[in-house]
């Protein structure tokens, strides 16, 4: 496969761009693989890429019911940060964030990582203290993060309403300068191209219909394009995890709910960082196209429809209009919903299961995009060596029975 560079761009420009190679093959499904990954989203493709690159497993397939990157990978608000409270979370999210820094070079594909800084607003005394605690935990873990005061918040984000009379006044913020945003589609496409280049078959429009288990071991899967023999199956299907795992008779401690986001009409640059306001429940950044990218809280009831409640959106927008009065008369350009899988402690599950050869990576809930490279890296290692990677180990499914929760739902700096 040809490398993308300034020279390939120039060469193709001279040919009127008629000779660009396809970024990945449209692979035919074979009847046998060393491993099959179900779900060609960011996490699934990253897993395939690192399996091929780090573990030399190239006789593998990624199968996808819809189209590549068409689920939550294409439905998030592209925020990348790692300032979580618990040590296990810091380890995996910081691994992901640091991999994002060099991802464009590693993949030879521009993933447009933009470390523009992420600010988590402190709008009550309690929130201020909670973030100070997180700040200390993060500094102990060696993360480049710091508390900033109201003046610096205003300097970094002039459009913010810093009036002391606001219903929730800005008291300061918790700032991760090396956090930011990336280009979500490019992450999926880059990993797909990299995996394909190493021989991985990516098969789209191929729905898994059953997982064959014999004597407690995976023997293969049934798909809409035929049967596949394989000893290893990795389920990376986010909102549909419960549905796919039920095919192998494994119950999952997750619930699927809808999380929505929206973008405004494009405007000139007004905000060059990411602002998260968790007390009022909304977060905002600006895309390179000029749209304000806005997200908020998830809906409160189970949902597989990718259509959420208007009430949730209204709540988010109300909060952000209060925080950024300048946006009050902007129109909504697009809004959408994705089905996210929530665990009880709001931390992911990266785990072996009671069925030998069946692996699961799910439960990323509202924070999947930021973790794609780290999740793929440790999950690939877990699959290749049939034991949890040290960073993945705390995220095993058995933690719920053992009481080892990685509790990010009440303690973390995150909008849930």
């Amino acid at each position, binding site marked *: 496969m040809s490398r993308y560079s300034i020279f390939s761009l120039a060469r193709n420009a001279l040919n009127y761009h008629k000779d660009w190679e396809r970024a990945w093959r449209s692979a035919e499904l074979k009847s046998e693989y060393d491993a099959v990954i179900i779900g060609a989203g960011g996490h699934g493709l990253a897993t395939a890429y690192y399996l091929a690159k780090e573990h030399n497993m190239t006789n593998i397939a990624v199968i996808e019911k819809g189209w590549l990157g068409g689920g939550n990978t294409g439905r998030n608000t592209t925020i990348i940060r790692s300032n979580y409270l618990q040590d296990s979370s810091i380890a995996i999210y910081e691994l992901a964030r640091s991999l994002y820094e060099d991802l464009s070079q590693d993949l030879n594909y521009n993933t447009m990582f933009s470390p523009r800084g992420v600010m988590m607003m402190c709008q009550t005394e309690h929130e201020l203290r909670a973030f100070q605690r997180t700040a200390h935990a993060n500094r102990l873990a060696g993360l480049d993060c710091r508390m900033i005061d109201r003046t610096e918040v205003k300097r970094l984000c002039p459009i913010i309403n810093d009036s002391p009379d606001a219903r929730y006044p800005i008291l300061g913020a918790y700032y991760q300068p090396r956090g930011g945003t990336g280009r979500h589609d490019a992450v999926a496409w880059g990993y797909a191209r990299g995996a394909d280049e190493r021989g991985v078959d990516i098969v789209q429009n191929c729905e898994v219909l059953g997982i064959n288990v014999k004597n407690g071991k995976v023997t293969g899967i049934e798909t809409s394009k035929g049967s596949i023999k394989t000893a290893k199956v990795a389920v990376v299907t986010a909102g549909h995890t419960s549905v796919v795992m*039920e095919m192998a008779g494994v119950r999952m401690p997750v619930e699927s709910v809808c999380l929505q986001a929206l973008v405004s009409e494009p405007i000139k640059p007004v905000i060059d960082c990411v602002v998260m306001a968790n007390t009022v429940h909304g977060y905002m950044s600006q895309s390179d196209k000029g749209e304000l990218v806005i997200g908020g809280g998830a809906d409160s009831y189970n949902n*597989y429809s990718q259509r959420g*409640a208007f009430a949730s959106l209204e709540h988010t927008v109300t909060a952000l209009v209060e925080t950024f009065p300048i946006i009050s008369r902007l129109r909504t350009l697009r809004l959408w919903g994705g089905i996210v899988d929530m665990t009880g402690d709001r931390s992911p599950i990266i785990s072996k299961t009671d069925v030998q050869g069946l692996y699961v990576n799910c439960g990323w809930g509202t924070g999947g995009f930021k973790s794609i490279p780290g999740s793929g890296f440790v999950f690939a290692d877990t699959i290749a060596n049939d034991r949890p990677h040290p960073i993945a180990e705390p995220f095993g499914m058995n933690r719920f029975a053992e009481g080892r929760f990685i509790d990010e739902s009440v303690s973390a700096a995150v909008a849930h």
Partner: protein
Amino acid sequence: MLVIKCPVCGVEGEEGDFHAGGQAHIARPASSNPENISDIEQSDYLFMRHNPKGLHFERWRCDRGCGKWFHAARDTVTLEFKGYYAINELPPVELMEQAKGYWAEHFASAIKSSKRPKS
């Protein structure tokens, strides 16, 4: 948007008028057998949830009406409410029979006993 009708006071509204209370019919193991509860049973009670794509059984509260809790059967794909029943009741038999997967297992004995002729 959901269209929800409270079976207690009869008001109709959308999800903002009601409160979603999560999965219904979760029995606390310790209430019947407090001594011999295994970690698995307790963690299943706390964290394991039916998460069907299709017919689901839930608790809801009539927040801006009568304030009462009630049960509802809802499709998680079409978001349609299929039926309502009281907070201390099992679903109507015809709804239990439509249930699939883990819910079908859950209701299997209840369906069986409802079919038994009353002596």
